[in-house]
């Protein structure tokens, strides 16, 4: 009873804020129309080195440009509760940059747009900062931390203490020469506990050059065929897959999000997550296919569903990661064996080549850990299987049971 009253109180507060937000949006338009300044820009040099570094046969396409913009926004939890979030959205090629701040105000995606790259690419990633519409009192800079990037240099590592981070209405370039395939993740590292809890998280993975081998290439006892894909440069086809699905585990504390939205002291010491998410959604939203509009303004803020679909006999690569700031999670999959071939963006193989991959019925990940899991569906009866956390108390959307960290693996006949 008390709790319900509290929540109503919070929503009243939120409504006030949203009103304020609209006012500020109007103000922002005025500001945007004011004197010109550097604001939103991107660096995307052409690939003119004449070398085909990604191995796709084209020497002129190895530079890849992506453009993220940080802002705030809203996301719906599976029990219908709307949460205020911080996050990234993507400025797509061709979008007018002079309108980007306005167009990407209150546009946070939960989770952030997925970054999928190929080994050998040179990535020019731009991060712009649109500011927080609902929290104009905050002047937070932002960053991109490519978590796990080998031999990172601080300037592109996004860790605010040791480098620079980008202020509002400005843009910062990041550069990555992509050498090591595997499953990574990314997040904002500014005020990391707060910004990650608020949702500034995303998936990031790198596909190996082995995908680009000519058909008929012999890899030990395995022969590569055109179009076959691998998790790693395994040299033997052991990480081969037909279907690739990235699933990021995360969790939110609604009290923290509400405190942020309503300009209250943030409960760091009392942080306790009550929404348990895969790709930013709790079950059953995890299996609601395609982008999902939020109930605040209808934006497609939760773009990535978490349903896995494959035909019987196909091999599925699950790119699992965890970005919770409070919990380790164990996930299991009933009825389909899990074979772990990689961890933390490295093939599970010892320094002398010993095979360290393993079969399991559960995978445990702490925040900032990843695993690559192959599902071989040979002989699996078509139907719907469930991938869910065995931390059974996390199978909930706050007070609502039978939800939370769960999704479906659908095997088609």
């Amino acid at each position, binding site marked *: 009873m008390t709790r319900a009253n509290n929540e109503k109180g919070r929503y009243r507060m939120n409504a006030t804020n949203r009103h304020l937000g609209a006012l500020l949006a109007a103000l922002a338009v005025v500001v945007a129309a004011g004197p010109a300044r*550097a604001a939103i820009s991107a660096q995307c040099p052409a690939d003119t080195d004449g070398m085909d570094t990604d191995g796709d046969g084209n020497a002129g396409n190895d530079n890849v440009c992506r453009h993220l913009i940080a802002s705030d926004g809203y996301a719906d939890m599976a029990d219908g509760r709307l949460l205020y979030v911080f996050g990234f959205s993507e400025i797509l090629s061709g979008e007018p940059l002079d309108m980007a701040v306005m167009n990407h105000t209150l546009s946070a995606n939960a989770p952030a747009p997925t970054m999928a790259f190929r080994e050998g690419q040179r990535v020019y990633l731009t991060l712009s900062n649109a500011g927080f519409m609902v929290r104009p009192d905050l002047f937070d800079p932002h960053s991109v931390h490519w978590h796990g990037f080998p031999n990172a*240099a601080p300037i592109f590592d996004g860790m605010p203490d040791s*480098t620079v981070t980008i202020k509002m209405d400005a843009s910062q370039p990041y*550069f990555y020469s992509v050498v090591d395939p595997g499953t990574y993740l990314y997040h904002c590292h500014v005020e*990391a506990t707060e910004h990650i809890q608020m949702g500034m998280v995303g998936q990031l993975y790198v596909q190996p050059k082995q995908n680009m081998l000519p058909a008929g290439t012999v890899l030990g006892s395995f022969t590569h065929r055109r179009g076959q894909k691998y998790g790693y440069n395994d040299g033997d086809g052991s990480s081969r897959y037909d279907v690739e699905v990235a699933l990021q585990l995360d969790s939110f504390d609604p009290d923290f999000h509400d405190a942020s939205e309503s300009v209250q002291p943030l409960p760091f010491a009392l942080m306790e997550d009550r929404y348990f998410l895969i790709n930013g959604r709790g079950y059953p939203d995890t299996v609601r296919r395609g982008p999902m509009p939020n109930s605040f303004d209808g934006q497609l803020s939760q773009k990535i569903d978490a349903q896995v679909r494959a035909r019987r006999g196909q091999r599925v690569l699950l790119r699992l990661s965890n970005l919770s700031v409070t919990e380790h999670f164990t996930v299991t999959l009933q009825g389909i064996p899990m074979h772990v071939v990689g961890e933390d963006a490295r093939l599970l193989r*010892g*320094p002398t080549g010993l095979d360290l991959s393993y079969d399991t019925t559960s995978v445990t990940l702490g*925040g900032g850990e990843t695993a690559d899991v192959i599902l071989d569906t040979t002989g699996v009866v078509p139907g719907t299987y469930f991938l869910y956390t065995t931390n059974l108390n996390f199978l909930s959307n706050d007070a609502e049971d039978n939800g939370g960290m769960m999704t479906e693996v659908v095997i088609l006949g």
Partner: protein
Amino acid sequence: MTKHTTSMGGAMLLALALASFPAPARGAIPGVEGPSFSLTARAGFVSTPEGGSIYSWGYADGAGLMQYPGPSLLVDEGDVVTVTLSNELPVNVSIVFPGQQGVTALGGVPGALTSEVEPGGTPVTYQFTAARPGTYQYFTGTDTQLGVEMGLVGALIVRSATAGWAYGHADGAYDREFLVLETEMDPIIHELVETGRIAEVDFTAYRPVYWFLNGRSAPDTMVPAGAQWFPHQPYSCMPMSHPGDRLLVRLINAGRGLHPFHTHGQHMRIIAQDGRLLESAPGAGADLSFLRFTTTVAPGGTEDAIYSWTGDNLGWDVYGHRPGDPLEPGEYALDHGKPFPVIMPDPKDLEPGPYYAGSPFLGVAGYRPPVAGTSPNAHAGYVFMWHSHKEYEMVNNDTPPGGMMTMLIVEHPDVPVMEM
């Protein structure tokens, strides 16, 4: 519970500390040399960065002050180790040595796990042969849940017979070694114990709000070892490196929680767990070792990791060389002279961090040159955070940032690496 102490600026503390304390030997883990130790369990206060002071128990080196964590016990493989424990606490205490076999205990009174020392009672002498090199811990075997929470825990390091190797194989070779001992505290329990209300301690309500590396919470982890304003917390946690150095990171989870420990800058190669090289057969080397960018050490467990930041393969020259310049020692030659790939924005658009020297290059100061004696990164090194990625542990009792976090500084090859 909390006695408030004066809080000063970190940079100033650092400068003071550097002035006051001579550097110990290169890359050595500070501790007490064995094989014979005399420890006393007594009480003291653990300082926290936001100004708190928490009543704690710990092991002291002989007549010294209580330490959190207890003295790192440094012994050599094959040593017959003797630890004599006295007790000035109001409860019984003891020591158990997980991973050691044939531990004998003389004196004291019988306890559930081992012989115990009563308050002010006759000491117990524990003895064992440190048969296998590796990273271990020790803690009280008496009311362990309360005792370890109160601080009765420490590291035991058994050095291998070959200097510079963690284990009996070159796969464990290292240039510098560092201890990373993870613990946490719930100050409510400490307050109850301090005020004589042990009976009211309720671990079902346990909620730690402080997280420590080597007994300090960030940013105190980065204040040099032995700083006099941490009388009960003599150890820092400040890894330092040159490019290409092999750092042996001795990770110990000496608390009860799970902490996904993330090293910015590079993967760790996990070469050993619980004091055993990850090898398929004796003498095979660490052929079962694996690479992690985040590792969760089990409570009560240890891991040894080799970390080596080289700066290879970035596609640009981290030193900012022109093509004709000479190579630095160990520099990745294929990137030599390659230009910085992007144009950095106007500094007015950027928020600089305290370790940022104003240039993207290693050892090169730019528009924010470090101020001698006060900058935490005096030589424009590359600074990488090492921290729990359970990020609510990067907080000091509701005050972020802090907690289970520290920084690695990789210095330019020309700059001597300071021992912290």
